[in-house]
Protein backbone atom coordinates (compact mmCIF):
# COMPACT_ATOMS: atom_id res chain seq x y z
CA UNK A 1 0.00 0.00 0.00
CA UNK A 2 1.27 3.45 -0.91
CA UNK A 3 2.87 5.50 1.81
CA UNK A 4 0.38 8.43 1.50
CA UNK A 5 -2.43 6.05 2.31
CA UNK A 6 -0.61 4.61 5.27
CA UNK A 7 0.20 8.05 6.62
CA UNK A 8 -3.48 9.00 6.34
CA UNK A 9 -4.59 5.87 8.19
CA UNK A 10 -2.01 6.31 10.90
CA UNK A 11 -2.98 9.95 11.48
CA UNK A 12 -6.67 9.01 11.55
CA UNK A 13 -6.03 6.19 14.03
CA UNK A 14 -4.10 8.45 16.40
CA UNK A 15 -6.74 11.17 16.13
CA UNK A 16 -9.56 8.74 16.89
CA UNK A 17 -7.88 7.50 20.05
CA UNK A 18 -6.92 10.98 21.20
CA UNK A 19 -10.40 12.42 20.59
CA UNK A 20 -12.08 9.51 22.32
CA UNK A 21 -9.89 10.02 25.37
CA UNK A 22 -10.52 13.78 25.43
CA UNK A 23 -14.26 13.16 24.99
CA UNK A 24 -14.16 11.02 28.12
CA UNK A 25 -11.60 12.77 30.30
CA UNK A 26 -12.24 16.50 29.69
CA UNK A 27 -13.39 18.05 32.94
CA UNK A 28 -15.72 20.47 31.13
CA UNK A 29 -18.57 18.28 29.90
CA UNK A 30 -19.53 20.71 27.16
CA UNK A 31 -16.04 20.32 25.75
CA UNK A 32 -16.31 16.56 26.12
CA UNK A 33 -19.54 16.53 24.12
CA UNK A 34 -18.10 18.66 21.31
CA UNK A 35 -15.14 16.33 21.17
CA UNK A 36 -17.49 13.35 21.02
CA UNK A 37 -19.31 14.96 18.08
CA UNK A 38 -16.01 15.44 16.23
CA UNK A 39 -15.09 11.86 17.12
CA UNK A 40 -18.25 10.75 15.30
CA UNK A 41 -17.19 12.68 12.18
CA UNK A 42 -13.80 10.99 12.12
CA UNK A 43 -15.42 7.64 12.80
CA UNK A 44 -17.33 8.06 9.52
CA UNK A 45 -13.98 8.54 7.75
CA UNK A 46 -12.68 5.36 9.38
CA UNK A 47 -15.68 3.38 8.11
CA UNK A 48 -14.91 4.66 4.61
CA UNK A 49 -11.31 3.53 4.96
CA UNK A 50 -12.48 0.08 6.01
CA UNK A 51 -14.67 -0.27 2.93
CA UNK A 52 -17.98 0.19 4.73
CA UNK A 53 -19.72 3.14 3.02
CA UNK A 54 -23.16 2.02 4.23
CA UNK A 55 -21.96 2.26 7.82
CA UNK A 56 -20.29 5.61 7.10
CA UNK A 57 -23.58 7.02 5.82
CA UNK A 58 -25.42 5.86 8.93
CA UNK A 59 -22.70 7.29 11.16
CA UNK A 60 -22.68 10.61 9.31
CA UNK A 61 -26.46 10.94 9.49
CA UNK A 62 -26.80 9.89 13.13
CA UNK A 63 -23.48 11.06 14.55
CA UNK A 64 -23.39 14.50 12.95
CA UNK A 65 -27.09 15.17 13.34
CA UNK A 66 -29.06 13.46 16.02
CA UNK A 67 -26.55 12.23 18.60
CA UNK A 68 -24.96 15.65 18.93
CA UNK A 69 -28.35 17.34 19.11
CA UNK A 70 -29.50 14.99 21.90
CA UNK A 71 -26.34 15.53 23.95
CA UNK A 72 -26.31 19.33 23.57
CA UNK A 73 -30.01 19.48 24.43
CA UNK A 74 -29.39 17.53 27.63
CA UNK A 75 -26.46 19.80 28.59
CA UNK A 76 -28.74 22.80 28.18
CA UNK A 77 -31.51 21.25 30.24
CA UNK A 78 -29.43 20.17 33.21
CA UNK A 79 -27.90 23.63 33.32
CA UNK A 80 -24.55 24.88 34.40
CA UNK A 81 -24.62 23.39 37.88
CA UNK A 82 -25.57 19.97 36.53
CA UNK A 83 -22.74 20.02 34.02
CA UNK A 84 -20.12 20.72 36.69
CA UNK A 85 -17.88 17.76 37.46
CA UNK A 86 -14.65 17.00 39.26
CA UNK A 87 -11.43 18.55 37.95
CA UNK A 88 -9.95 15.18 37.04
CA UNK A 89 -12.96 12.95 36.57
CA UNK A 90 -11.16 9.75 35.55
CA UNK A 91 -8.15 10.06 37.83
CA UNK A 92 -6.78 6.72 38.93
CA UNK A 93 -7.68 6.29 42.59
CA UNK A 94 -7.42 3.26 44.80
CA UNK A 95 -11.13 2.53 44.36
CA UNK A 96 -10.71 2.54 40.59
CA UNK A 97 -7.58 0.41 40.55
CA UNK A 98 -9.53 -2.81 40.20
CA UNK A 99 -11.54 -1.44 37.28
CA UNK A 100 -8.38 -0.19 35.59
CA UNK A 101 -6.64 -3.50 36.06
CA UNK A 102 -9.58 -5.44 34.61
CA UNK A 103 -9.78 -3.09 31.63
CA UNK A 104 -6.05 -3.42 30.94
CA UNK A 105 -6.36 -7.20 31.16
CA UNK A 106 -9.26 -7.21 28.70
CA UNK A 107 -7.35 -4.96 26.31
CA UNK A 108 -4.27 -7.17 26.50
CA UNK A 109 -6.35 -10.26 25.76
CA UNK A 110 -8.01 -8.54 22.78
CA UNK A 111 -4.65 -7.41 21.40
CA UNK A 112 -3.30 -10.95 21.74
CA UNK A 113 -6.29 -12.27 19.81
CA UNK A 114 -5.86 -9.64 17.09
CA UNK A 115 -2.18 -10.47 16.67
CA UNK A 116 -2.96 -14.18 16.48
CA UNK A 117 -5.59 -13.82 13.76
CA UNK A 118 -4.43 -14.62 10.22
CA UNK A 119 -4.65 -11.74 7.71
CA UNK A 120 -7.28 -13.53 5.62
CA UNK A 121 -10.12 -15.50 7.13
CA UNK A 122 -13.30 -17.06 5.81
CA UNK A 123 -16.39 -14.93 6.34
CA UNK A 124 -19.93 -14.86 5.03
CA UNK A 125 -19.11 -12.91 1.85
CA UNK A 126 -19.40 -15.92 -0.41
CA UNK A 127 -22.78 -16.96 1.03
CA UNK A 128 -24.08 -13.39 0.92
CA UNK A 129 -23.05 -12.94 -2.70
CA UNK A 130 -24.32 -16.38 -3.79
CA UNK A 131 -27.88 -15.57 -2.69
CA UNK A 132 -27.80 -11.95 -3.84
CA UNK A 133 -29.62 -12.71 -7.11
CA UNK A 134 -32.56 -14.11 -5.16
CA UNK A 135 -32.62 -11.46 -2.43
CA UNK A 136 -34.48 -8.78 -4.41
CA UNK A 137 -31.73 -6.12 -4.08
CA UNK A 138 -28.17 -5.91 -5.34
CA UNK A 139 -26.51 -4.18 -2.37
CA UNK A 140 -25.35 -7.05 -0.13
CA UNK A 141 -25.65 -4.93 3.04
CA UNK A 142 -29.30 -4.13 2.31
CA UNK A 143 -29.86 -7.78 1.41
CA UNK A 144 -28.48 -8.78 4.81
CA UNK A 145 -30.51 -6.17 6.68
CA UNK A 146 -33.84 -6.83 5.01
CA UNK A 147 -33.67 -10.36 3.72
CA UNK A 148 -31.09 -12.73 5.21
CA UNK A 149 -31.30 -11.29 8.70
CA UNK A 150 -34.58 -9.41 8.46
CA UNK A 151 -35.59 -10.57 11.95
CA UNK A 152 -32.65 -8.56 13.39
CA UNK A 153 -33.89 -5.43 11.69
CA UNK A 154 -37.46 -6.07 12.81
CA UNK A 155 -36.32 -6.35 16.41
CA UNK A 156 -34.12 -3.28 16.03
CA UNK A 157 -37.13 -1.21 15.05
CA UNK A 158 -38.80 -2.78 18.07
CA UNK A 159 -35.97 -1.50 20.28
CA UNK A 160 -36.41 1.99 18.86
CA UNK A 161 -40.13 1.76 19.57
CA UNK A 162 -39.41 0.68 23.16
CA UNK A 163 -37.10 3.66 23.63
CA UNK A 164 -39.89 5.94 22.40
CA UNK A 165 -42.36 4.32 24.80
CA UNK A 166 -39.79 4.78 27.56
CA UNK A 167 -39.56 8.50 26.85
CA UNK A 168 -43.34 8.77 26.65
CA UNK A 169 -43.98 7.15 30.04
CA UNK A 170 -41.58 9.52 31.81
CA UNK A 171 -43.10 12.66 33.28
CA UNK A 172 -43.14 15.70 31.06
CA UNK A 173 -40.27 18.17 31.15
CA UNK A 174 -40.71 21.91 31.57
CA UNK A 175 -40.76 23.67 28.28
CA UNK A 176 -37.69 25.73 27.48
CA UNK A 177 -38.75 29.31 27.03
CA UNK A 178 -37.31 30.32 23.73
CA UNK A 179 -37.27 33.65 22.06
CA UNK A 180 -38.79 33.86 18.61
CA UNK A 181 -36.34 32.29 16.17
CA UNK A 182 -34.38 34.84 14.12
CA UNK A 183 -35.34 35.00 10.46
CA UNK A 184 -32.17 33.32 9.07
CA UNK A 185 -33.02 30.16 11.00
CA UNK A 186 -36.33 30.01 9.16
CA UNK A 187 -34.50 30.40 5.83
CA UNK A 188 -32.19 27.59 6.83
CA UNK A 189 -35.10 25.30 7.64
CA UNK A 190 -36.90 26.28 4.45
CA UNK A 191 -33.92 25.12 2.39
CA UNK A 192 -32.65 22.18 4.44
CA UNK A 193 -35.93 20.48 5.26
CA UNK A 194 -37.03 19.88 1.64
CA UNK A 195 -33.49 18.84 0.75
CA UNK A 196 -33.39 16.42 3.68
CA UNK A 197 -36.65 14.89 2.42
CA UNK A 198 -35.29 14.56 -1.12
CA UNK A 199 -31.91 13.16 -0.07
CA UNK A 200 -33.59 10.86 2.48
CA UNK A 201 -35.84 9.46 -0.23
CA UNK A 202 -32.86 9.14 -2.56
CA UNK A 203 -30.90 7.19 0.06
CA UNK A 204 -33.85 4.86 0.56
CA UNK A 205 -34.20 4.23 -3.16
CA UNK A 206 -30.48 3.91 -3.91
CA UNK A 207 -30.05 1.51 -0.98
CA UNK A 208 -31.31 -1.33 -3.15
CA UNK A 209 -28.19 -1.31 -5.30
CA UNK A 210 -25.67 1.04 -3.66
CA UNK A 211 -24.79 2.28 -0.16
CA UNK A 212 -27.85 3.77 1.53
CA UNK A 213 -31.11 2.50 2.98
CA UNK A 214 -33.96 3.09 5.38
CA UNK A 215 -31.89 3.96 8.46
CA UNK A 216 -29.66 6.43 6.73
CA UNK A 217 -32.66 8.07 5.08
CA UNK A 218 -34.67 8.02 8.30
CA UNK A 219 -31.86 9.54 10.35
CA UNK A 220 -31.47 12.34 7.82
CA UNK A 221 -35.20 13.07 7.84
CA UNK A 222 -35.11 13.09 11.62
CA UNK A 223 -32.31 15.67 11.62
CA UNK A 224 -34.53 17.82 9.41
CA UNK A 225 -37.36 17.38 11.92
CA UNK A 226 -35.08 18.41 14.78
CA UNK A 227 -34.11 21.58 12.90
CA UNK A 228 -37.77 22.36 12.29
CA UNK A 229 -38.48 21.86 15.99
CA UNK A 230 -35.71 24.28 16.89
CA UNK A 231 -37.08 26.92 14.54
CA UNK A 232 -40.77 26.48 15.46
CA UNK A 233 -41.18 24.30 18.53
CA UNK A 234 -43.98 21.78 18.11
CA UNK A 235 -45.29 19.12 20.41
CA UNK A 236 -45.44 15.48 19.39
CA UNK A 237 -48.12 14.42 21.79
CA UNK A 238 -49.67 11.02 21.97
CA UNK A 239 -52.38 11.71 19.42
CA UNK A 240 -53.49 8.68 17.44
CA UNK A 241 -51.76 9.86 14.29
CA UNK A 242 -48.37 10.09 15.98
CA UNK A 243 -48.90 6.73 17.68
CA UNK A 244 -49.89 5.14 14.41
CA UNK A 245 -46.81 6.52 12.65
CA UNK A 246 -44.54 5.40 15.46
CA UNK A 247 -45.88 1.85 15.37
CA UNK A 248 -46.25 1.82 11.58
CA UNK A 249 -42.75 0.66 10.65
CA UNK A 250 -42.77 -2.23 13.09
CA UNK A 251 -46.34 -3.19 12.21
CA UNK A 252 -45.81 -3.24 8.45
CA UNK A 253 -42.62 -5.24 8.90
CA UNK A 254 -44.37 -7.76 11.15
CA UNK A 255 -47.44 -8.06 8.94
CA UNK A 256 -45.35 -8.65 5.83
CA UNK A 257 -43.38 -11.30 7.72
CA UNK A 258 -46.58 -13.02 8.82
CA UNK A 259 -48.02 -12.79 5.31
CA UNK A 260 -44.96 -14.63 4.04
CA UNK A 261 -45.62 -17.29 6.66
CA UNK A 262 -49.22 -17.67 5.46
CA UNK A 263 -48.08 -17.82 1.85
CA UNK A 264 -45.98 -20.83 2.81
CA UNK A 265 -42.50 -19.36 2.66
CA UNK A 266 -41.83 -19.09 6.38
CA UNK A 267 -41.59 -15.96 8.57
CA UNK A 268 -39.93 -13.16 6.58
CA UNK A 269 -38.94 -15.55 3.76
CA UNK A 270 -39.64 -13.60 0.61
CA UNK A 271 -40.28 -15.42 -2.67
CA UNK A 272 -37.32 -14.40 -4.89
CA UNK A 273 -39.47 -12.86 -7.62
CA UNK A 274 -41.28 -10.42 -5.32
CA UNK A 275 -38.60 -9.86 -2.71
CA UNK A 276 -37.63 -6.45 -4.12
CA UNK A 277 -41.18 -5.12 -3.85
CA UNK A 278 -41.71 -6.36 -0.29
CA UNK A 279 -38.37 -4.95 0.80
CA UNK A 280 -39.20 -1.55 -0.68
CA UNK A 281 -42.58 -1.56 1.10
CA UNK A 282 -41.00 -2.46 4.44
CA UNK A 283 -38.20 0.05 4.02
CA UNK A 284 -40.52 2.92 3.15
CA UNK A 285 -42.67 2.29 6.22
CA UNK A 286 -39.56 1.77 8.34
CA UNK A 287 -37.92 4.99 7.16
CA UNK A 288 -40.92 7.17 7.96
CA UNK A 289 -41.40 5.46 11.29
CA UNK A 290 -37.71 5.68 12.22
CA UNK A 291 -37.62 9.37 11.33
CA UNK A 292 -40.67 10.11 13.46
CA UNK A 293 -39.40 8.07 16.40
CA UNK A 294 -36.01 9.75 16.37
CA UNK A 295 -37.68 13.16 16.38
CA UNK A 296 -39.88 12.03 19.30
CA UNK A 297 -36.73 11.01 21.18
CA UNK A 298 -35.44 14.57 20.75
CA UNK A 299 -38.68 16.43 21.40
CA UNK A 300 -39.81 14.24 24.30
CA UNK A 301 -42.83 15.34 26.24
CA UNK A 302 -43.00 18.89 27.40
CA UNK A 303 -45.37 20.33 29.92
CA UNK A 304 -47.87 22.81 28.61
CA UNK A 305 -47.05 22.24 24.97
CA UNK A 306 -50.17 21.18 23.13
Amino acid at each position, binding site marked *: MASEVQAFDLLLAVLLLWLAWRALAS*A*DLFKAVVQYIVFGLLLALAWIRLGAPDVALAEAAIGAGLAGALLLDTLARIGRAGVRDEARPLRLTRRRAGVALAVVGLAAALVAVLLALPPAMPGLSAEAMAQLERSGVSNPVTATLLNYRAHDTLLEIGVLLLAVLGVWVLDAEPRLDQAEAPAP*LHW*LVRVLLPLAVVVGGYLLWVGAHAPGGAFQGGALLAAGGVLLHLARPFALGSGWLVRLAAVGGFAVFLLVGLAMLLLGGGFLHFPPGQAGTWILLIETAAMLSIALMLVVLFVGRSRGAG
Partner: protein
Amino acid sequence: MNALDALSLLLVGAGAGFFLVGSIGLLRLPDLLSRLHALTKADNLGLGLVVAGLALQAESLRQVLQLGLVWALVLFSGSIACYLLAHAETASTPVEPETRDGE
Protein backbone atom coordinates in the same frame (compact mmCIF):
# COMPACT_ATOMS: atom_id res chain seq x y z
CA MET B 1 -0.01 14.41 -16.39
CA ASN B 2 -1.79 16.85 -18.70
CA ALA B 3 -2.54 20.53 -18.13
CA LEU B 4 -6.06 19.88 -16.85
CA ASP B 5 -4.80 17.49 -14.19
CA ALA B 6 -2.14 19.96 -13.17
CA LEU B 7 -4.67 22.78 -12.84
CA SER B 8 -6.99 20.52 -10.91
CA LEU B 9 -4.24 19.56 -8.49
CA LEU B 10 -3.24 23.18 -8.10
CA LEU B 11 -6.79 24.15 -7.13
CA VAL B 12 -7.17 21.22 -4.75
CA GLY B 13 -3.80 22.02 -3.20
CA ALA B 14 -4.77 25.66 -2.74
CA GLY B 15 -8.01 24.50 -1.10
CA ALA B 16 -6.15 22.24 1.31
CA GLY B 17 -3.84 25.15 2.02
CA PHE B 18 -6.82 27.34 2.91
CA PHE B 19 -8.01 24.73 5.38
CA LEU B 20 -4.62 24.85 7.03
CA VAL B 21 -4.52 28.66 7.07
CA GLY B 22 -8.10 28.79 8.36
CA SER B 23 -7.41 26.44 11.23
CA ILE B 24 -4.23 28.28 12.14
CA GLY B 25 -6.27 31.48 12.11
CA LEU B 26 -8.83 29.82 14.35
CA LEU B 27 -6.03 28.99 16.73
CA ARG B 28 -4.19 32.31 16.70
CA LEU B 29 -6.95 34.92 16.56
CA PRO B 30 -7.86 36.47 19.90
CA ASP B 31 -11.66 36.45 20.13
CA LEU B 32 -14.76 34.64 18.96
CA LEU B 33 -15.89 37.12 16.34
CA SER B 34 -12.56 37.28 14.52
CA ARG B 35 -12.37 33.49 14.71
CA LEU B 36 -15.80 33.30 13.08
CA HIS B 37 -14.34 35.42 10.32
CA ALA B 38 -11.40 33.02 9.84
CA LEU B 39 -13.76 30.07 9.85
CA THR B 40 -16.00 31.37 7.09
CA LYS B 41 -12.92 32.10 4.95
CA ALA B 42 -11.56 28.59 5.37
CA ASP B 43 -14.96 27.01 4.82
CA ASN B 44 -15.97 28.92 1.75
CA LEU B 45 -12.63 29.21 0.00
CA GLY B 46 -11.01 25.96 1.10
CA LEU B 47 -13.93 23.74 0.25
CA GLY B 48 -14.74 25.86 -2.81
CA LEU B 49 -11.27 25.39 -4.27
CA VAL B 50 -11.27 21.66 -3.50
CA VAL B 51 -14.67 21.35 -5.21
CA ALA B 52 -13.50 23.38 -8.22
CA GLY B 53 -10.39 21.24 -8.58
CA LEU B 54 -12.34 18.01 -8.34
CA ALA B 55 -14.99 19.26 -10.75
CA LEU B 56 -12.30 19.45 -13.44
CA GLN B 57 -11.89 15.71 -13.04
CA ALA B 58 -15.58 14.86 -12.95
CA GLU B 59 -16.77 12.36 -15.50
CA SER B 60 -20.31 13.63 -15.85
CA LEU B 61 -22.38 16.76 -15.43
CA ARG B 62 -24.24 14.99 -12.62
CA GLN B 63 -21.04 14.72 -10.63
CA VAL B 64 -20.27 18.40 -11.15
CA LEU B 65 -23.75 19.34 -9.95
CA GLN B 66 -23.41 17.08 -6.92
CA LEU B 67 -20.12 18.71 -6.01
CA GLY B 68 -21.64 22.14 -6.46
CA LEU B 69 -24.61 21.20 -4.27
CA VAL B 70 -22.33 19.99 -1.48
CA TRP B 71 -20.38 23.23 -1.58
CA ALA B 72 -23.48 25.42 -1.70
CA LEU B 73 -24.97 23.56 1.27
CA VAL B 74 -21.88 23.89 3.44
CA LEU B 75 -21.62 27.55 2.48
CA PHE B 76 -25.28 28.28 3.19
CA SER B 77 -25.75 26.41 6.44
CA GLY B 78 -22.29 27.35 7.68
CA SER B 79 -22.82 31.06 7.20
CA ILE B 80 -26.31 31.01 8.70
CA ALA B 81 -25.14 28.98 11.71
CA CYS B 82 -22.24 31.39 12.23
CA TYR B 83 -24.57 34.38 11.88
CA LEU B 84 -26.88 32.89 14.51
CA LEU B 85 -23.96 32.30 16.84
CA ALA B 86 -22.59 35.82 16.40
CA HIS B 87 -26.08 37.22 16.89
CA ALA B 88 -26.66 35.24 20.08
CA GLU B 89 -23.22 36.07 21.40
CA THR B 90 -23.43 39.82 20.85
CA ALA B 91 -27.02 39.97 22.09
CA SER B 92 -26.51 38.08 25.34
CA THR B 93 -23.00 39.10 26.42
CA PRO B 94 -21.83 42.55 25.42
CA VAL B 95 -18.51 42.25 27.25
CA GLU B 96 -17.01 38.80 27.24
CA PRO B 97 -14.29 38.05 29.76
CA GLU B 98 -11.93 35.24 28.73
CA THR B 99 -12.56 33.21 31.85
CA ARG B 100 -15.18 30.74 30.87
CA ASP B 101 -13.16 27.59 30.66
CA GLY B 102 -14.68 25.01 32.96
CA GLU B 103 -11.35 23.54 34.00
